Each structure stands twice: as C-alpha cells, then as structure tokens.
C-alpha cells in the first residue's frame, strides 16, 4: 500500500516538472511534427491516467526505460552507478554505528565527566556542519597537506581495481560516517538516558545486579528499540544524501547520475534513480520494523498509530 502511494507521489511529482521531456532531446529548431513524434515515442502524449498505468506495469517488468540523452537502458546505468553508491553508503553506515553506539552510551553513562561533555559538544557541532564542507576540510587536511589520500575520483574500471577503488572511497566514507554518527550519537545517548532512568533498571539494581550487568541484561534490549528505527531512517537518508558527497569527491555514483539527469531533464533517468531510492528507503524501513518486533515482543501485537 505505502509502496503504491510512494509511486503515485513520485509519478505526479515528476509530471509537475515543466519543460517537455521530449523537447530537450531535439535541437532547438525541431519542427512540430518532430516534437509530436518524439512525444509519441516517449509516451508523454497519452492521458495522465494511461501514463500512470504504463508506468506501473513497466516497473513490475523491471523496465525503467532508456535514457533520452545517452540511449542507455536506465536499469543498466543505475546498476553500474549502484556499485559505487551502495558500498559507500553501507561502509559509512557500519562505521557510523561503530563510532556512535559506544560513544553515545559512554556519554550518557558518564555524563558528568569532562570527556562526555566534550562528546556532546562535538555531536552538536556535527549536526550543524554540512556534509560537503566536512568533505572539503578532510580533503584539505588529508589530501593537500598530508598527501595521504586521493582527493577524489574513482578508477575507470571500477571494482576491477579493488585497491584503488577502496583507497578512493576512504575519505568519502569517513565524511558520511562522521556526519551520521553526530546525529546517531544523540539518539543513542537519549535512549540510554531513558534506560538509566527506568524503573526496571532500578529494580534490577535493587535486586543486587551490578550496574553493568543490569544494563547489559535489561538496558540494551530496551534501548535498542528507538535506536533501530532511527538507524533505518538514517540509512535511507545517507543513501539519498550521497548526492552531495559524490559531488565533493567526483564519484560516479547514483547521486551524480541524478544531478546530471536533473540538469538535462532526462526523465527516465531521474525516475529510475528516484524509484530505486524510494524502494530502498521503504525496504530499509520494513526491515527496521521487523527488527524492532524481534527485539521487543510487545510490538508483535498490533501497534497503535499515533
């Protein structure tokens, strides 16, 4: 159901874009007949309802159409671009969890200590820093001053040169991971605070459990529930947010494909990238939902909508 709504929103959002998609592929001096022919080929001369049905059936046949500009099937190009964006996002996500979960718990448990205060200030800073600026700063330090890492680009043969590819992904991955962990840390910290102030933890302590033991046995499971749903949202938005980072490091991923497609009004390409992203966001949300139910049995029964 939500998938259908998502596709509808997407479809009509795209139709709202003015500028005839077919007009952009013809030269300026195209005759009306040529434009009409192009529109017929693209299918933008059909009534909206018919276009929508065709749009849906094409999706289910996994046919994303062909690019207006390059003539390459959209699915092929999306697949190729995905081989850059997906590793970037997943590695950044994993790194962000590694950074934010321990630091978040630490900053809540030891909130009175100076290093916890510093952590909290740093995470506040991280939320205010735009990803692309952090990227530029990292380039400034690690590529220009220290000359440790390349400032951007991706091997033309892609993952056939694994060492080169990984080296060039280090800085982008770190950039995305740092920005993500700033936000994540706050959620982990808040969740930990909730657990720390809870009755069940106090009860466990009163029954003679050690602090660390009580936290491990009762706290982790409870604290994980809100964090999992945030993780889902963050993964989705990191995937979509790759647009900017790919520009900073001139990576040939989905983001740069989308940006180029928007500039060229290349409908099928815009559509393809967005479809895939929507699907991914929804799937990730679904997985997060299932995970939450696994962690918390109470959620297995129907959950009330706010």
């Amino acid at each position: 159901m939500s998938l259908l709504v998502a596709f509808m929103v997407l479809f009509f959002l795209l139709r709202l874009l003015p500028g005839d998609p077919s007009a952009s592929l013809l030269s300026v001096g195209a005759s009306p007949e040529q434009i009409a022919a192009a529109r017929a080929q693209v299918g933008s001369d059909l009534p909206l309802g018919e276009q929508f049905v065709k749009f849906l059936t094409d999706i289910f046949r996994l046919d994303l159409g062909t690019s207006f500009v390059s003539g390459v099937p959209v699915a092929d190009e999306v697949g190729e671009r995905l081989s850059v964006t997906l590793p970037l996002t997943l590695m950044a996500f994993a790194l962000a969890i590694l950074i934010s979960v321990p630091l978040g718990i630490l900053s809540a448990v030891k909130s009175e200590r100076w290093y916890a205060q510093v952590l909290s200030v740093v995470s506040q800073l991280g939320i205010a820093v735009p990803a692309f600026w952090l990227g530029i700063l990292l380039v400034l330090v690690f590529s220009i001053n220290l000359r440790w890492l390349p400032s951007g680009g991706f091997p033309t043969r892609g993952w056939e040169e694994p060492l080169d590819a990984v080296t060039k992904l280090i800085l982008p991955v770190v950039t995305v991971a740092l920005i993500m962990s700033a936000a994540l840390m706050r959620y982990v910290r808040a969740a930990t605070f909730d657990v720390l102030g809870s009755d069940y933890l106090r009860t466990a302590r009163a029954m003679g459990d050690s602090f660390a033991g009580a936290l491990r046995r009762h706290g982790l499971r409870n604290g994980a529930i809100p964090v999992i749903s945030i993780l889902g949202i963050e993964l989705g938005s990191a995937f979509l947010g790759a647009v900017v980072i790919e520009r900073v490091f001139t990576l040939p991923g989905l983001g740069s494909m989308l940006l180029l497609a928007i500039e060229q009004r290349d409908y099928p390409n815009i559509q393809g990238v967005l479809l895939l992203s929507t699907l991914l966001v929804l799937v990730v949300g679904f997985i997060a939902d299932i995970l939450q139910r696994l962690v918390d049995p109470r959620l297995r029964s129907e959950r009330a909508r706010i």
Partner: protein
Amino acid sequence: MSETTTIAPAQRKPAKSRSAIFAIGLILVGLHVAIALTTVFWTPYGAMETAGMRLEAPSAAHWLGTDRLGRDFLTLVMIGSRIALIVGIGAVGIGAAIGVVLGLLAAFATKFLDDVLAAMLDILIAFPVLLLAMLVVAASSEASLWTATLALGIAMSAIVARLTRILVKRVLQNDFVTAARTSGSAWPSIVLRHILPNIWPTLIVNFALQFGIAIIAEASLSYLGLGAPLPNASWGRLLQEAQGTVYTAPLGAIAPGIALVSLVIGANLLADGMRELRDPTRSTQR
C-alpha cells in the same frame, strides 16, 4: 557506587546553564543579523567588484584574501549572512504556512482522508529535504534566490504538517475542546482560541531547528549549483567556487563554512534554550 550517582542529576541540568545556552544562541544569531543589516548599505568592497589581484593572501586590505577573480572574500562571506537569513526565514515561513494548514486539515479530516494524508507525509518525510528541494528547483526554469527558498519551504512543509497533525490531535483530546464544542463554538474560533495557542510554543521551537536545517540544505543546493547565482550567492556557492582553488587559497574554503556553522549552531542553541525555558522538566535529549 560512583556509577549510581552519575545517573540522576544528568537528566536535568540547572536552569542557569539553560539560559546561558539561550544567550549564546542569541549572540550568535544576533551577530549574523547585525552583519546582514550592515551589508544592506555597506560592504568593504562591491560584491562583484574586482577588488584586488587574483587569489591574494589575507592582508590588511583583504582580511580573508581574494578569490580567483580578485573579489574580496570577506565581502562575499558577509553578504552570505544576508542570503542565509533571507532564505532561512523565507523557507521556514513558507513551510510553516503550508504545513500548519495541511496538518490542521489532516487532524480535522475524516478518518480515510487523514490516513491518506498521513501516509503521504510519511513518505515525503522519508526523503531528505535536500532531495525534494532539488526536484522543485529542477522544475523551475532558472535558479534564483526565490526558487531555492520556495523549494526548501515546500520540502519542509511535510515535517511541519506531520508535527502539527500530531499536536492538534493531542489538543483535541482535551476537555476544554470538548466543552467548547458542546457549547456550540464554531470550528474557526476553536482553532484560533484553543488549538493554535496550545501548539504554538512547540511549533516555534521546531521552526528554530528547521531554520538551521534550511540553511544547511540551501548551502548544499548552492554547492550543487542549484542555488542563486552571484551577487546573491550563498556560502554554499562560495564553497563550491573555493574548492577549485583550495590549494592556493584555503581560507576561501574555510571561512564560509565557519560562518554557516556558527549561524546554525546559534539557531539550534536558541531552540534548545527556548524549549528548556518553557518547560524545565523536559530534557533536551533528542
């Protein structure tokens, strides 16, 4: 032991530090407002003026040096304050206008319409503000300050709408609303007299946070080349241009970022401070 003592006090910080946070936020934002107002009638050089040699190092004449066309970096960064405030306030205003109306509609609508609206809002919110804004900008024929502002406002309205919807539903459960309803008050007067005053404080705190989000998103848009062109360029475009000359003029790639971050932090601190001053029992964690 020492572990237990750290638990309780951490959740509530003394009110004093909260008003300090508010004050720091006010100073940071106030500084940017002052700079923005100054640029209306005075800047060190003209925005488009070739004020010196290309890529000059910082000097008494050019505190932050010059860019690849010989323009004064300080002038451009100062103008950036004005652009950021215009876009930030404009976008939040547009987002608020659309979002509050949509949220009210959803809260008052029939169950079916409410469900549909809520589902659509959830999906829109799953997309980053930046991506939605990119699409709106792409839809308009030319990039300008207005299109960027409008795009961000539209993109943010979904978040405002969902928040408003939840807040209104919560207020509607109160006895005083039922009382007003049974005593025959008209809907518009219930909205104006009972609902808006109750949800307003929470909304305002949210707007301060969204102001920061809008400014970051606008800088990102500009960085991608989808924002307003010079002389209305924002910090994002300055950073994009400076990235090309980062070897020779690193300050150009640093200063606009610092300006941007200081304004966003200022807005966030204001929001934190407001929330705490209004309701000292609620913690800032979140």
